[in-house]
């Protein structure tokens, strides 16, 4: 396996580094596409042919003994997801990096392309590895590759800071995983996910589960550990944000699913509650902060956190249902979670691509400087609108289907009178999240694309090139497909859910067959009906207006004689109402000075307001501070005097002498 990796690495790097500057991105895209298509073909084979060979490789690990990699239905689903996201990102990168080719040195670009390739394939390795050393290897490879990707604009200080905090947090999470796997290996003699069942069987499962949850949650952006996302995403170039937020954090979800699956009994119930609460908190926190952000990419990053929360709610409900032996609920929750994972990768990639277009055309991502882009970049605007509606879980698009599944799971629980309180909380949380998401994304779309441009640079923006539009069309296809034909998508994810249900694939399929198709057909019917009715009404209206006078007049200024562009409602004021409720979650940061009241003829004032996470310093800052303080003390030790050099030795002798005298060692 590793030999193969070695070979692939060598070939890819050689090809990319030797390619001429112009051809690098295209070549990268080609490599990624071919690899992804091959993997996707294999995955489809696994998904639809139950007798397909799932074993991928067999390697003798030096760390945990022999290890293997295999692709069961779940892995196959994630491989599909990764392949899709990877291809889209590669395609987008081709268009996006064009502007940088002449500014960045070729080595820089090649490094970037190589890291992108490595990231995509290491993620596939992660979801295919059965655990143990191979898993950790690919996991860390993924981390370092994404780190190098974030560093694309490393001339800017804040980029470096974000990248570093990301790297450090990932390292902490990684150590949790190592601890988990070692514990597993110690007790069962094998560090594969399969042996988890064995471990859970005869020991207290929760501590190990929590250990893994911490490790994977760090990557997935679980509530207290989410702080790297809003830092890293604005720093990274857009296709990277798309991959990281659309695909990479899903590997964390994958891990959580893997370690949660073999649980049973009381532990399963507890885990379900934990996941549910974690999901609700993460989702609410994410969405409220998303609504508060004034930067496009930060907003998107927080909405990723929110979606992770939704996915976890689904997982938690599934676990609860399974623990109470209610397979229908379990299947609903699982399918909802998995489908939402898929959907999120679709619309989040699309949204980040859109953000990339905005950035490269207007050179800003600050919501309150943009506006009216729908006229200058109509295609981007249309695609972005679809994605925004989809992420707000509105019918007839895909986000609705997955959230509907999760809701149905919870409603079934409530209607069945089981775990009513937990499910009710789930419903409450999910509903609140759904509501606020609408607020956040109306803010985003309305402020960025609608109204009139708030600056000249924005007014002169041009539409992005076709490559990027094509790259954005890929996820859109996914969105529409899932939204309009949910039956197929749900059939797909229900196959993938089979390994987690501890039921045989066939029985799961049967359950899904008797559970979903009816209502899903109705849903797709509703979707088509919506489209039809709306189209009909629109046509009707235009028919009515055809032979009537349709004139243009200025917007009603409510009595203002000279309303100007700066008077438009800003994003900040748009979300002010929510802020007034949820101000405990955020701390307001204002730079510059507001106009003082006694200033009758105000001069030019610059005032920049933003909302920071209350806990964003949880992992990032405090230990840097601590380090600084420690260092100040440490400085005393380095006088450069020989006396002190030798003093170290003397002190060491005395220290050991005392310790052994006290029998401490």
């Amino acid at each position, binding site marked *: 396996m*590793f*030999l193969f*990796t*070695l070979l692939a*690495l060598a070939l890819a790097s050689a090809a990319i*580094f030797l390619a001429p500057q112009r051809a690098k991105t295209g070549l990268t895209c080609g490599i990624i596409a071919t690899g992804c298509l091959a993997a996707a073909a294999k995955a489809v084979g696994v998904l639809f042919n139950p007798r397909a060979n799932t074993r991928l490789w067999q390697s003798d690990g*030096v*760390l945990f003994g022999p290890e293997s990699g295999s692709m069961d239905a779940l892995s196959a689903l994630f491989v599909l997801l990764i392949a899709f996201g990877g291809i889209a990102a590669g395609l987008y990168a081709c268009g996006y990096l064009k502007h940088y080719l002449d500014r960045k*040195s*070729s*080595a*820089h670009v090649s*490094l970037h392309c190589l890291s992108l390739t490595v990231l995509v394939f290491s993620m596939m390795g992660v979801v295919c590895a059965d655990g143990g*050393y191979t898993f*950790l*290897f*690919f996991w*860390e*490879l993924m*981390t*370092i590759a994404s780190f*190098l990707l974030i*560093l694309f604009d*490393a*001339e800017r200080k804040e980029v*470096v800071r974000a*990248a*570093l905090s990301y*790297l*450090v947090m990932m*390292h*902490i999470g990684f*150590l949790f995983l*190592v*601890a988990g796997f*070692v*514990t597993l*290996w*110690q007790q069962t003699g094998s560090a594969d996910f399969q042996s988890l069942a064995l471990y859970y069987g005869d020991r207290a499962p929760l501590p190990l589960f929590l250990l893994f949850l911490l490790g994977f949650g760090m990557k997935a952006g679980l509530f207290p550990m989410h702080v790297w996302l809003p830092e890293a995403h604005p720093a990274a170039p857009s296709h990277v944000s798309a991959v990281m937020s659309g695909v990479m954090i899903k590997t964390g979800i994958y891990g959580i699913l893997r370690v949660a699956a073999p649980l049973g009994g009381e532990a399963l119930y507890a885990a379900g509650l934990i996941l549910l609460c974690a999901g609700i908190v993460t989702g609410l926190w994410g969405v409220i902060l998303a609504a508060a952000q004034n930067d496009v990419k930060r907003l998107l990053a927080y909405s990723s956190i929110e979606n992770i929360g939704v996915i976890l709610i689904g997982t938690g409900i599934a676990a609860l249902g399974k623990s109470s032996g209610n397979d229908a609920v379990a299947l609903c929750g699982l399918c909802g979670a998995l489908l939402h994972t898929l959907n999120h990768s679709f619309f989040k990639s699309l949204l980040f691509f859109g953000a990339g277009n905005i950035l490269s055309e207007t050179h800003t991502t600050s919501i309150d400087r943009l506006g009216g882009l729908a006229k200058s970049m109509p295609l981007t605007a249309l695609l972005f609108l679809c994605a925004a509606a989809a992420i707000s879980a509105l019918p007839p698009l895909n986000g609705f289907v997955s959230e509907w599944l999760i809701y149905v799971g919870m409603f079934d629980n409530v209607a069945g009178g089981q775990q009513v309180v937990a499910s009710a909380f789930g419903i409450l949380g999910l509903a609140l999240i759904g509501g606020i998401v609408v607020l956040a994304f109306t803010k985003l779309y309305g402020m960025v694309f609608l109204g009139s441009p708030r600056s000249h640079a924005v007014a002169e923006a041009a539409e992005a090139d076709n490559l990027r539009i094509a790259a954005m069309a890929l996820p859109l296809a996914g969105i529409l497909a899932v939204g309009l034909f949910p039956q197929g998508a749900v059939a797909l994810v229900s196959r993938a859910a089979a390994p987690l249900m501890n039921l045989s694939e066939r029985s799961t399929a049967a359950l899904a067959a008797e559970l979903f198709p009816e209502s899903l057909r109705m849903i797709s019917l509703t979707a088509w009906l919506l489209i039809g009715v709306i189209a009909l009404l629109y046509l009707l209206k235009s028919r009515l207006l055809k032979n009537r006078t349709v004139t243009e007049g200025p917007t009603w200024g409510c009595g203002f004689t000279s309303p100007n562009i700066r008077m438009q409602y800003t994003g900040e004021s748009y979300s002010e109402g929510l802020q007034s409720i949820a101000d405990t979650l955020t701390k307001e940061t204002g730079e510059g000075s507001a106009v003082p009241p006694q200033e009758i003829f105000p001069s030019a004032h610059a005032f920049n307001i933003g909302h920071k996470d209350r806990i964003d310093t949880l992992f990032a800052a405090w*230990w*840097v501070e601590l*380090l600084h303080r*420690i*260092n100040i003390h*440490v*400085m005393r030790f*380095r006088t450069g005097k*020989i006396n002190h*050099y*030798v003093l*170290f*030795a003397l*002190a*060491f*002798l005395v*220290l*050991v002498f005392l*310790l*052994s005298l006290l029998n401490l*060692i």
Partner: protein
Amino acid sequence: MIIYFLLSLAGAALALAARSKRFIALAGLFFFAVQFGLAGLLLGGGRTGETSALFFRFDESGLLFYCLLCVVGAFVFVHSKAYLKENPLKEYRLYFCLLMLLQTAIAGVYFSDNIAVTWIFLEATTLCAAGIIYHRRTAQTLEATWKYIFVCSTGIAMAYLGILLLCSVAEGGSLSYGALAERLRTGNPLYLKIAFLLILSGYSCKMEIFPLYTIGVDANFAAPSPASALISTGLVNAGFLAIFRVYRLMAETDIFGWVRSVLLIVGLLSLAIGALFLRRTNNYKRFLSYSTVENMGIVAIGLGIGGIGVWAALFHAVCHTLVKSSLFLQMAVVRQVYDGYRINRLGDYLSINKVGAVGLLLGTVVVLAFPPSPLFLSELMVFRGIFAAGKWWLALVMLLLLCIVVYSICARIIKLCYQPNQDELHPSRADRALSWSALALLIAAMVLGLWQPAPFRELITVIATL
């Protein structure tokens, strides 16, 4: 062995007597012919384990590190030639002579089977290294040299006391490790403890771990970078091997637990010092040598954990040799480009020297033990040992320190490669070939990280079996 020494000395003498730089190149050629000849002989002839010239024994550990030494030495030699182009012939040939002598002495340390002989050759390395450190003939180098000789001699003297104690415990007889191991089993534990303590703190000046790590850092700072590449890999390995042999002696006795916990303390302290000082230093060479301190700390912790930790420690040392030498050689190129090492002034290396910058970045990734790095494997093994031993506190502290290390190293290297340059700096062109050759070492390390050939594993396993 004797022949080897004679030939090497002859090479060194040739270098010293050289009339022209070309002649020195020839001498170097001859010297390395000798080195690789021996290596080939040992690898091919399968003469491992046989004793030579009474005090020397070609055992596996010596062989492994000797091969590394040959490779690194050759690279160092080539780089030095490019690095010291402008020097006058006198210093030039002295430098190369000392370089060869140093390498010979290190080889002696590797192969010596007698604890006293090990000591002698370590002292000899001090003397050769001192000359190299003083090469630039400035006040700073003078100071560094003074400190190096002085502290090394003091430490070595301590170690000698420890050795004498061992001998006395062993009640005379031959001082070859095998014989000692036989007789130490029944030794007075307190004596053994004191002896080990003295030897450890004495040799720590060579292995660059706490307590006497400082002079190693100073030496790397003062010596020309190619030479520091040798000092902080070959010489460090020599110190490691010397300590490791004593460690194996102790493994037989009943104070082994105590020895291991002492090593844990040492390793943890070294790791802490490396981590904390990495952030503050503002000279890239001191920076790299602090990372050496940190890595050696991990090695010591591995020894302290025991079991799989020993394997990890050896593997770590081996791969660290490749990685660190590559980094130091890259730094030599950086020096050529910027004519300085001040961290807060250099920048924008990526666009000045592509290969070198990529080499540096990859080197950072590898030295931070991210895959595809061999150190990744060894650190994981150390962690496995720690968790398996249930020392969670240790794991926690290590985690914190490693995070600090990751943070500081990345911050520094990224600054060098990406951040815009200081305008009063006038970077000159870099020599691609040198960067490539340094990169080659790194790539070798990566290959080792992804795929360890079976015989290699076997070798390490043999060495690690106490």
